[in-house]
C-alpha cells in the first residue's frame, strides 16, 4: 500500500459533493480517532509490512491474472483477462479489506469486531480475519440473506463468529448495516465496525478503497509486464463498489483506460425490482454518506432486488457517485437473467465458477465485446467465486421463468 496522495479526497472525506459523515454525534469522536489511526498506520512501515506479509502468506496474493482464451474466441474481438480475486483466501476480494481493518482495530486496542454482510462474503472474510488475529466477532445479516446464503452463515459460525439475523425492514444488507450501526453507537469504546464496502461515513470509503486498491496495483503491473501496454477497458460489478474501486483506482490517471461499473438490473425497471442506482437514483444520505440513492419522493429508501445478495443495496459508494458525475467511469446494468447466463458461460467456456456478483461484470461482455477491435484488451474483475451461489443457480435453472 503506497501512502499515495489522494487528490480526489476533500475535507471531511468529500468526493466533490459526495461523501462526508452524516452520523449520530456519538460516532463522531470514534470516527475521528479511526481516521487518525488509519493515517498513522498508512505511513507506518511496520504496519505495512505486517499487512503485506498477511496478504502474501495468508491470502495468497498476488492473485493470478488469467487470459480467457476460449471466451475471447467466442466473441472474436478483443482479448479478455480476468483478475482472479476468486483465488484469494475465503474466495473473494473482501479479505483484503477485512484483514486491513481488523489489523488496524487490534493496533487501536479494540477487542471486539462487528460487521454487516449481504452475500456473506464480507462476513466470512471478517470472521476469518478475527479468527486469525484473535478478536471477538459478531456479524449482522438480514434474515432474507441468511436464507439464500445459508452456507456462508454456517461458515461464519465455524470460524467462531456470532451471526445475528436482522428482521427489520427488507431484512437484507441495508437493514444489517442499520443494526450494525446501532450496535456500534452503544459499543464504540471497545468495538470496531468493519464496514465491508466503500460506503459509510468518512473515513470508511477512503480506507476500504485504500485496502482494496491492491487489486488494481497488482493488475496494472501484471498487464504491463505481460502485454507491454495498459488494458483498454476495465469492467467490475458495483454493489457498494469496493471491488470496482479497488481495481479502478490504480488506473484513474490513465486517461486511455475506459472503466465500466456494472450494477444489478434485477428483474426489471420497476420500483423495488433492481439496484440500478445510477438509472433512477437521486442524491441522498444513507448510512453516514451522501451519494446516489434509490428513494421515494419523501426521502424514504426504496427496497431493491438482485439475484445477487452482494449487489442488493440501495446506495453506492460516494467515490463512484463522484466519478459518475464527472464522466470518468461509466455505469451500466446487467439483469438477473444476463448474470445467470454469464455464470453458465464462464463455467462452460473457461472452467471458472464466478460469484453471481462477478457474473454481472462478465455479463456486460455480451454488449461490450461486439463493439471492440482486436487491439483492445479487456480486464474484468472476477471478484469472487461462486460456490456460495451454486444452490441458488440450481434452483433458478430448475425453475426457468
Amino acid at each position: 500500500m503506497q501512502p499515495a496522495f489522494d487528490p480526489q479526497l476533500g475535507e471531511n472525506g468529500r468526493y466533490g459533493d459526495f461523501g462526508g459523515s452524516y452520523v449520530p454525534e456519538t460516532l463522531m469522536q470514534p470516527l475521528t480517532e479511526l481516521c487518525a489511526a488509519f493515517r498513522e498506520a498508512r505511513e507506518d512501515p511496520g504496519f505495512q509490512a505486517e499487512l503485506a506479509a498477511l496478504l502474501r502468506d495468508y491470502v495468497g496474493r498476488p492473485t493470478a491474472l488469467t487470459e480467457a482464451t476460449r471466451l475471447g474466441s467466442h466473441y472474436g474481438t478483443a482479448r479478455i483477462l480476468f483478475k482472479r480475486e476468486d483465488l484469494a483466501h475465503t474466495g473473494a476480494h473482501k479479505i483484503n479489506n477485512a484483514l486491513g481493518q481488523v489489523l488496524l482495530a487490534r493496533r487501536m486496542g479494540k477487542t471486539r469486531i462487528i460487521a454487516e454482510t449481504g452475500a456473506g462474503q464480507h462476513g466470512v472474510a471478517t470472521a476469518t480475519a478475527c479468527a486469525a488475529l484473535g478478536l471477538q466477532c459478531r456479524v449482522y445479516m438480514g434474515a432474507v440473506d441468511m436464507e439464500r446464503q445459508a452456507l456462508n452463515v454456517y461458515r461464519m459460525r465455524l470460524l467462531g463468529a456470532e451471526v445475528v439475523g436482522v428482521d427489520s425492514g427488507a431484512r437484507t444488507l441495508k437493514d444489517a448495516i442499520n443494526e450494525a450501526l446501532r450496535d456500534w453507537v452503544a459499543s464504540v469504546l471497545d468495538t470496531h465496525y468493519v464496514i465491508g464496502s466503500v460506503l459509510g461515513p468518512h473515513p470508511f470509503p477512503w480506507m476500504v478503497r485504500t485496502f482494496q486498491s491492491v487489486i488494481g496495483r497488482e493488475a496494472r503491473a501484471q498487464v504491463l509486464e505481460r502485454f507491454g501496454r495498459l488494458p483498454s477497458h476495465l469492467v467490475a460489478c458495483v454493489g457498494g463498489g469496493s471491488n470496482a474501486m479497488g481495481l479502478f483506482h490504480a488506473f484513474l490517471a490513465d486517461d486511455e483506460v475506459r472503466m465500466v461499473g456494472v450494477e444489478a438490473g434485477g428483474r426489471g425497471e420497476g420500483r423495488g425490482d433492481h439496484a440500478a442506482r445510477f438509472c433512477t437514483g437521486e442524491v441522498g444520505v444513507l448510512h453516514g454518506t451522501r451519494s446516489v440513492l434509490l428513494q421515494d419522493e419523501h426521502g424514504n429508501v426504496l427496497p431493491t432486488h438482485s439475484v445477487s445478495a452482494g449487489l442488493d443495496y440501495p446506495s453506492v459508494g460516494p467515490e463512484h457517485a463522484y466519478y459518475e458525475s464527472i464522466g470518468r467511469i461509466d455505469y451500466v446494468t446487467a439483469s438477473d437473467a444476463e448474470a445467470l447466463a454469464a455464470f453458465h458461460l464462464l463455467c462452460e467456456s473457461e472452467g471458472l465458477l464466478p460469484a453471481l456478483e462477478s457474473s454481472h461484470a462478465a455479463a456486460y461482455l455480451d454488449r461490450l465485446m461486439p463493439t471492440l477491435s482486436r487491439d483492445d484488451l479487456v480486464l474484468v474483475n472476477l471478484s469472487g467465486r461462486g460456490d456460495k451461489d451454486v444452490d441458488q443457480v440450481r434452483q433458478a435453472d430448475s425453475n426457468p421463468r
Partner: protein
Amino acid sequence: MQPIRRALESARGAGHAALIPYLTLGFPHLKASLALLEALEEMGCDVVEVGIPFSDPVADGPTIQHSIDVSLRGGVHLGLCLSALEELGNGGPRLLFSYFNPLLRFGLCNLTAALPASGVSGVLVTDLVPEEAAEWLDHAQPARIETCFLVTVTSPTARLERAARASSGFVYCVSTLGVTGARSKIDPRARETVERVKSVTDLPVAVGFGVSNVEDVMEIRDYADAVVVGSALIRALGDETETGALVARAQDFLGPLLEAAHA
C-alpha cells in the same frame, strides 16, 4: 429570543426544569398523534418534539423504530405532517425531530418556508453533525429557525464547543452511549457532561435518551434545564389505537413527570 430557547429560559426562571416529550407523528395514526400533541401542549409541556418518520432510523432503538414503522405504513411523511400541524393551529413551541434525508428530499428552502405556519420553531436532525450542517444553517439561520445539536458523554471539549456554537434553542446532551430507549438508570457521566457544556455556553441544556420515570426527572432537573422523554412515552401508549384512550395514557404517564419537572 426565539420560542424554544424562551420556553426553556422561562422554565429556568421559574425554578423549573422544562419537560420535552417526544411523539412520532403518525403513531399509531396521524389523527391520534395530533390529538396527543394537543393534549401534551395543553398539559403544559414546555416544548414537544415531533418525530418525522424515516425508513432507516439508525439512531433509534426498538420502541421508536416500531412507532416509525407504523407511521410509514400509514403513509405518513414530512409534507403531510407539516400541513396537518398547520391545520392544528399554533400551539408549540414544537421541535421537529428527524433524519437528514427526508429534509433534503423535501428541500431545505421549502422546509424553512413551511415551518413557521406549522408551529415548528426548531429542528433537531439526529444524523447531522455540525461539520455537515453548513447547508442547513445557511437556510435555518436567516429564517430564524432554531437548531439543536447533540453532545454525548464521550464528546471532547472541542466538540462540545463546536456543537454549542452551532446550536440555538438548546444543546441536547445524550445521556448514554447507544440508541434511543428507556433504560433502568441514567448514566452518571451525564451530569458531568452537562456541566462541561454549561462551562462553554449560556444556552440551556437538555438531557435525553434513557429517561423513563419520575426518579430520572428528579435527578436530571438537579443539573440540567430540560428533560426529554421519548421511548418511555411511546411505550406507555402501548398498542392502544383509540384516540381518547391514548390521550388518557399519555396524561397518566406524563402527569407525574411534569409535576416532578415543574416542582
